Each structure stands twice: as C-alpha cells, then as structure tokens.
C-alpha cells in the first residue's frame, strides 16, 4: 500500500511540475484533483470540529456532568442565516451574520492592533540611545540609532497631509531608503522560503520515492 501511495504522490507532484514546461492535460487533472480534494477536506474538518465538536457537543454534552451551553445556539442561528443567502427571497437575512462578523472583527482588531502595534511598538522604540544606565556596546548604540531614526523617517514617509519638502522631505527620503532595505530583506526571505519548499518536494522525489538520498 505504501508503495502505491508513493507512486500516486509522485505522479501528482510531477504533474504539477510539468506546468513549468507548459500548460497540459496532466497538470489540469492534478489541479482539478487538488481543488476537489481540498474543498472536501475543509468541508469535513469544519463539520466534525465545529458543527459537531463544538456546537452539537456543546449543546448536547455527552458527559452528563457538563452543563449544556445554550448560548451557542445563537451562533447556530447566525450560521443558518448565513445559508439563507441561497434563497434569494430572504437572502437579505444573511447580512445579519455578516454584520456580526464584520462588527466582531472590527471591534477586536481596533483594540488589539492599537494596543500591540501602536502602544507596544512605540514603547519599545523609546529606548535610550546611550547612557549611564544602559549597557551599550558600539553595536547596540548604532543599532538603536538606526531603529529610532529609521522608524521615525519611515513614518514620516507615510505622512499624507503635509507636503514632502525641505527637512520633512529629506526625512521622508531617508524613510523610503529604510523601507527599501526592509523590502530587500523581505525579498531575500521570500526567495529562501520558495527554495525551501522546492527542496521539500525534490527531497520527496529523490528520497522517499526513488530512494536516491537518505
């Protein structure tokens, strides 16, 4: 069985890779298999983990000692409303769960992004550049200055209600340089990621399938 399995996996892997030469039927079959299988997998996962594992078991617990949590039923009702989209006449009801999702996301994001990405990041940017109470090597001092100046300048670049002229424009220019270095690092890491993923597949083909490498 394991043997067949490896060949199936290799067949599918090579099918996707064949796209590099050009679009072909082999690739299209593999792609369709992918779409179908993944949709089915997600579907089942959500069913067993949420609808059954959470909603059903929450409202009708198997363990008699556990209190049924009827408040989950509101979620169930919202979920059913979501499905009403399929019935055009009362499809407008599906806006309620949507409104709930948007409101919940907005409310939670508002507070967590403000607290973590504004407050904490500002707090951390405020560090002594150098000073008596601070164990500082030249490396740290330069680093602190780069982070402080860089963050400052890059934020100035994102300032929209003021013309980028004079000193302000100069700072914005420094900001764009910092952003470019950031994007360069991002690019380097993206390349690293993609090559790793390819390595994973090559490892499968040469190691698990053919057994060339161990």
């Amino acid at each position, binding site marked *: 069985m394991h043997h067949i399995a490896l060949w199936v996996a290799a067949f599918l892997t090579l099918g996707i890779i064949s796209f590099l030469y050009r679009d072909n039927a082999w690739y299209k079959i593999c792609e369709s298999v992918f779409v179908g299988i993944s949709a089915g997998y997600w579907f089942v996962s959500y069913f067993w983990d949420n609808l059954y594992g959470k909603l059903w078991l929450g409202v009708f617990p198997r363990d008699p000692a556990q209190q049924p949590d009827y408040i989950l039923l509101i979620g169930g009702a919202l979920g059913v409303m979501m499905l009403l989209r399929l019935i055009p006449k009362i499809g407008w009801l599906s806006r309620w769960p949507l409104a709930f999702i948007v409101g919940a996301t907005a409310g939670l994001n508002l507070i967590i992004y403000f607290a973590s990405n504004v407050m904490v990041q500002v707090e951390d940017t405020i560090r002594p550049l150098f000073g008596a109470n601070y164990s500082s090597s030249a490396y740290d001092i330069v680093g602190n200055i780069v982070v402080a100046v860089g963050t400052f300048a890059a934020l100035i670049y994102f300032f929209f209600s003021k013309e980028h002229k004079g000193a302000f424009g100069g700072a914005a220019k420094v900001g764009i340089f910092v952003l470019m270095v950031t994007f360069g690092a991002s690019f380097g*890491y993206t390349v690293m990621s993609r090559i790793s993923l390819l390595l994973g597949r090559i490892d499968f083909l040469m190691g698990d399938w053919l*057994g060339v490498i161990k």
Partner: protein
Amino acid sequence: MNGRMYKYLAAVAVVTACVLLYVGKRVAWFEDMMFPTWLSILVCVLIAASMFWILLRTIKGKPAERRTVFLYVGIAVSLPLLMTISVHVPISTEGQLLFDGMKRIQPGSKVLVSFDYDPPSAPELQPMAEAFMRYCFERDIKVIIIGLWPQGPQQANLALAKLLAEPAISAKNLVYGVDYVNLGFQSGNEFVIQRMGSDFKSMFPADYRGTPYDSLPLVGNVRNFSGIDYSFNLSAGYPGTREWVLIGVDRFGLVMGAGNTAVQTTGMYPYVRSGQLKGILGGMSGAAEIEELTERLGKGAKFMVAQSFGHMVMIVFIVIGNVAYFLHERKKKKA
C-alpha cells in the same frame, strides 16, 4: 516532425522513464549514488561555466529563455542533495534568543505548541516542530498541541509519529494524555486564542480523537493560559504568530517563541526586538539553526547546502540580468 508525432514521443519517453525508475528502484540502482568530492567540484565548475556562458549570451543581447532559468534552479536545488558536503550553519541572535528561552523551561512544565500551517510550508516548519518537540520530550517537558489551521493537528501527528519511533524517545514510554496531547483544530482564527485566554475547555471540549477534555490528565487542570509555562508557535500566515502575539502574549501574558516560514519572518522582527516574542526561527535556515542548537541534525541542516546553491543561482541570474540592463536595455529606453 509534426506536433502529433511529438506528443506520442513525449508520452513514450515519460512511460519509459517511469518503467526505468520503477525497475531501478526495485533492483536498487540508485543506492549509494552520492557524489565523491571530485565529482561535486566538477559539477560546481560545470554549472559555473555554463552560467558564464549565459552571461556572455545575455551581453550579446540574447537573454536566456524562461525554461532555461527553470532548469538551472532545478539543477541547483537537486544536485547538491547528492553531494557529501557538510556545512556549519551560522546562528542568528534571534535563534540563540529562542534557544536560551527554551533552556529555561523546567522539566515537567507544560508547553503549548500551536501548529498553524499546512503541508506546503512543511519543509520549513516540520523540522522546527520536530526539533522543538524532541527537545521537550527528551527533557520531560509536557506538550499540548493545538491547531488554528485545520491541517495543523495532522502535521503534528506526523511529527509525533516520527519522534515517538526514535529509540531515545520511545525508551521513555511517553503516554498520550499524560506526556503529550493533541487537542485538534478549532475554527475562528484569532477568536480561538481570545477564548482560550479565559477557558481552554470551552474551545476544545474534546481532543482530536474525541476524548473529553477533563479526562485528559495533562490538561485536566489547565484552565487557561496561566496553566501554560511556555508556548511555541509554528506559523505560515494568518492566523499565526501575529495573532498569537497580539492576543496571547499582549492580552494574556503568554511567554512565546515562534518558528515562521521565511516569507513572514521579516514582519515579526519588531515583536522580537520589543520582547513580545522570545526569539524567532525563520524558514529553512531557522530550522537548521535549531537543529544545530539542540545538537540533533535533521532535514534542516541537510538541506542547507542545496539552499545555498539555490540562493547563489538566484543571485547570479539577477546579476546577469542587470549586466544586460546596463549594457543594453537602459540605452534602448533612453533612445
């Protein structure tokens, strides 16, 4: 030769290749195909020479075709796997920071590992997951697994199966539910973390096998994050490390380290500097780092040579492209 003929030939070639590969595997042609050192060097020289040739052609105004580039990337990534070169992985400060944090976990502590990725990112994250959990198991640290991605718990199972088969760990006779537990997946993204902050059990009434939460000794008395001593997040996107930091760490005071795919690692550095994250591992090189630090070399370290070659080929191609640009394209654009 007409197109039809061409297609048949291609099909025959593929089938022949398959048969050859199958027979080859059966009679073990491919065993011990590792390159000796002289061959490794020769291969490198040949690749370098041919890239020099591409440079010359590009300078002459004939840039390489897309498929040529594809071919080179393929070669650069697959041939080094056959070479017997061992390398030393440079340890980054963030990786060291993470390992220092891991060293502070006491035996018997409870560690929450969140598997927030799917198979495509497994080459990068699976070695990290294995290295981290191996470290825990070897030191009698208890592991609680959850997943914010539906495929996460399954990836965890793969890692567990591999680790539990290792002699050093199987000798410990680890018991499911006592030494480790897999609570499975819950949908709801960051809301799951939010909810776990006040009550694990309501989010995971049962583990992924359906065992009720309270009958699992390991988590029975873990009510919320305050019962967790350390947490490790393996993340490939949303929901992932960012959400864990924003909610788990900042709201509920979780102590967290993370392993990320390289693509999203760069965005996490501000959190590392501010101490919201206690270290981070980025991509395959991060995996190699943790393997080196825990002194158990695995796939991450094994792939580093091929990874290096991949990067080199990429850089050389960009340089070639830019040479062509400064010699030709720029003039053309000006004109």
